[in-house]
């Protein structure tokens, strides 16, 4: 927010760096600004367009759990607050159809279907790489069944569950139930369609479907027109069953009471990333505490090897989770299977009692690790700066924020996994290094 208002910060959102030339004190950066098809300076972020846009897609921010439109804002408090058209789904761009609904409703006149990408040149004395991280793809760990078992979710998906502005308004449900609920309108529509069809037949032949079917089965009525009716009736039965089941399931849908967190998913694992992702222990503790606050009865387990509560107040926070009834189990979970009720079963070694055990829960949350953003490779090649063995920008112990190239600094998860306070401190630190580099380059220029 402060960044958006600051008179000396020019924000180039929805943009990619194409090229960097020059050296400290004198970099020339070429930036490709992608078209939003919405004029940023006119768009006031009111959202009228998205309200009326007929194209419904799944919401990337809510991890496919919610719905979004072809004209969207990534999240409510995003900066800049401008909307963006996703040309890959928008009817105007895709189906060659004349939609134009958003342009009509936008009172600020901000929609611009003809907007083109822009190439900008920016002069900079120093560069700070803060390209962050990507989440480890949980599907890569075969034994935890992510993608196969619906009630295994990632920590980030779980954050959206817990959020009051998320797709479930802060309630935690089994994803399998939510999927059924999401399918309900579709089923209802399909069943109504068949019912209407049956009604038509009933009118034409002046008898009820039941009467007809009895006679048809008995072989009393034959002929192509009757075959069609019978086919529709036969098709309706399983649909009806499906609908009834779904309704029943949704009616008795209960929030997920038993939740297990599995730590180090993709991290501290020779098959994937050897390293520790630093922040996942604490976000599981946080999510566990919040889930308990939402539901005092919730049974919550955190399965981990070490709980890395190393920041200020973190150990105390972890203890608070314990006091609030969260159970910590020192164990690396071996496998997650699913039972007929779609509940995940965890298989693990209870190291305290030295036996292999299993535990049925409603929901499993995977603490997926931190991976370097693909941007790291791009900038490493573009700027000729080395990465660590793990793909993060390489720095030294001291100076801690410098890359190998003068005037180029790095902070946050781009440099390695870390939490928000560490990232913020480093970011301020980079600002100081940038100022120092400029004064150094200044003095060098004066000397030569």
């Amino acid at each position, binding site marked *: *927010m402060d960044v958006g*208002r600051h008179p000396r910060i020019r924000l180039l959102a929805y943009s990619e760096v194409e090229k960097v030339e020059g050296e400290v004190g004198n970099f020339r950066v070429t930036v490709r600004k992608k078209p939003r098809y919405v004029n940023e300076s006119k768009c*006031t972020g*009111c*959202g*009228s367009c998205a*309200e009326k846009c007929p194209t419904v897609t799944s919401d990337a921010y809510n991890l496919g759990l919610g719905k979004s439109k072809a004209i969207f804002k990534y999240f409510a408090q995003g900066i800049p607050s401008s909307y963006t058209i996703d040309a890959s789904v928008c009817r105007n761009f895709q189906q060659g159809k004349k939609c134009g609904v958003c342009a009509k409703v936008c*009172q*600020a006149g901000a929609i611009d279907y003809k907007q083109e990408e822009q190439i900008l040149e920016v002069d900079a004395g120093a560069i700070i790489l803060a390209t962050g991280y990507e989440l480890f793809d949980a599907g890569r760990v075969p034994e935890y069944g992510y993608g196969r078992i619906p009630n295994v979710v990632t920590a980030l998906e779980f954050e959206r569950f817990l959020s009051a502005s998320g797709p479930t308004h802060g309630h935690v449900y089994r994803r399998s139930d939510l999927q059924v609920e999401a399918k309900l309108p579709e089923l209802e529509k399909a069943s109504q369609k068949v019912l209407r069809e049956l009604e038509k037949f009933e009118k034409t032949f002046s008898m009820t479907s039941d009467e007809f079917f009895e006679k048809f089965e008995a072989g009393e009525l034959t002929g192509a027109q009757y075959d069609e009716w019978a086919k529709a009736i036969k098709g309706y039965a399983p649909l009806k069953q499906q609908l009834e089941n779904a309704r029943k399931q949704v009616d008795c849908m209960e929030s997920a009471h038993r939740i297990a967190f599995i730590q180090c998913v993709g991290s*501290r694992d020779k098959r994937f990333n*050897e*390293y*520790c992702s*630093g922040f996942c222990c604490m976000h599981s503790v946080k999510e566990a505490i919040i889930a308990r606050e939402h539901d005092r009865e919730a049974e919550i387990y955190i399965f981990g090897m*070490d*709980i*890395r*509560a*190393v*920041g*200020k*107040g*973190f*150990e*105390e926070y972890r*203890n608070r989770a314990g006091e609030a009834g969260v159970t910590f189990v020192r164990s690396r979970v071996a496998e997650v299977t699913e039972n007929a009720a779609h509940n995940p079963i965890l298989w693990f070694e209870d*190291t305290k009692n*030295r036996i292999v055990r299993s535990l049925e829960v409603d929901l499993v949350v995977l603490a997926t690790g931190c991976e370097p953003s693909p941007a790291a490779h791009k900038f490493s090649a573009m700027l000729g700066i080395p990465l*660590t*063995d*793990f793909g*993060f920008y390489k*720095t*030294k*112990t*001291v*100076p*801690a*924020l410098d890359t190998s190239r003068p005037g180029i600094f790095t*902070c946050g998860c781009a440099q*390695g*996994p*870390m939490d*928000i*306070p*560490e990232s*913020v*401190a*480093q*970011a*301020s*630190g*980079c*600002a*100081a*290094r940038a*100022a*120092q580099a400029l*004064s*150094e380059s200044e003095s060098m220029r004066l000397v030569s």
Partner: protein
Amino acid sequence: MSGNGEDMDVTEARIGVFVCHCGTNIAGYLDCEALMEYAATLPNVVYAKNNLYTCSESGIGEIQKAISDHRLTRVVVSSCSPRTHMPLFKSACAEAGLNPYLFEMANIRDQCSWVHMQERDAAQAKAKDLIRMAVAKAVLLTPQKDIEASLVKKAMVLGGGMAGLSSASALADMGVEVFLVEREAELGGLLRRINRVGPSGEKASDIVADMVRQVRDKPNIKLLLETELAGVGGVVGNYEVVLKTKSGEEIKQTVGSIVVATGAVPLNAEGLCGYDGKRVITQIELEEQLRDRKFEAKNVVMIQCVGARSAERKYCSRICCLSAVKNSIYIKELDPSAHVHVLYRDIQMYGTENEKLLWDSRGKGVRYDIYDASRPPVVKDGAVELYQPLTGMTVEIPFDLVVLSTPLVAPADSQTIANYMRIPVDGNNFFLEAHAKLRPLDFATDGIYLAGTARYPATVPEAQAQGLGAASRANTILSKDKLTFSALVSQVTDRCDGCGFCVDLCPYKALSLVEYEKDGQIRKKNRSDSILCKGCGVCAATCPKGGVVVLGFTRKQLEAQVDAALESLQ
């Protein structure tokens, strides 16, 4: 701002009310047209208008035009949050020649349309209440002038460890004159006692030498060694610092900003786990042995969390697992046949390179054994007795050296330093930042910043990043030509009789009692510092006699608002 509207006669309240639709954010739930018509009926309102976006260029233009066309002397915008939009509207007023303190806001979005989406009728009524309250208060607003203060472009950095050295060096490069104050005779802090810096393995002395050279090379850093802090007065921009040298000499300096980098010290292990300083030593003592090549032992047992993560010291010290893993490797490198056993609860090798170091140490044959906090290892004569929760057995591990990893603790005088500067410490006596997540290097008090292990145990690169960060935070103040503060601060009135109720309650320590003489008697009276005061209102709410008020929130103004609020009940 083109002016403060000083020449305009504003005694008569001629109010203009602007009702914002905020696109559909407000208008989607409230009838803004009706709100505008309602506002026009309120006393003293001479103009009312609704806009799609009051904050847009055209919206701002309409406010400014109305100020001149309708000779408005008060402006009320009923829209969104003052936190984000108040500055914009205030400066719009100022540009149009109206004193910006004659502006008032009603938040009918965040506090109404957004939170009452489901109850539109009630929300509409509430929006009317909010507008009526704002108008009632606006009548009683008075013009004010921003408080301006000069500042000194100098900084004091307290503590010459990695954090302080980094801060001082960065501030100097930003053109600030820096006083680097160090209690000891040498710079470098804790690093001077350390052998090599993990996980990368550079010699600590090389790192210190390099940093010290940088600092000594900069002419605008004044080094004050063997000097301690003796007092701090004044306010941001003009802190008056009193220092005392070893010889007892007093130095006074005025600085604009202060960086606190006083570090932390390893807990003294006296009385813990059989510590004797010879066969049972601490991790920092092992560092010194390794540094001085005095280390010789064949069977080493390290015990983690000694004096940490316990009832009396609840926190994890963040760096001692790294120290142990690092030193276990050095011991194996010196003598691959040596046995090193690390007894731990959780091995805190967070991040990429630390975890790698842990893998490496395992590869070199260092043994790791978990212990249970409820059954900690016992150091006996020549062997450590360990209950292994993983096997359910109790084993004896022979040793000729036991190394205790004790946590970093706040220096004994941190409370004194905190009192000098009126900054808080946490339950463990580490300095307490303004916001744990978003403002890790700031204090709630303006102009004072925090870095390194004075905040919380940190590694060398973390301490440096924080030191640099604190420098850039300090420069956000020092790079200004003058400091501007809101005029909406506390003021002591004639009714104050010096009872002092409010003085201790002020969270920003802006109040003090001063003595004066009247009718030959010594009396006391409250004095408020308008720069320290943040206008929070605690004092005004405390004083039973109206002895202190906060401008912009005077009793009269608040009463008018309350009366207006209650009108809807009548």
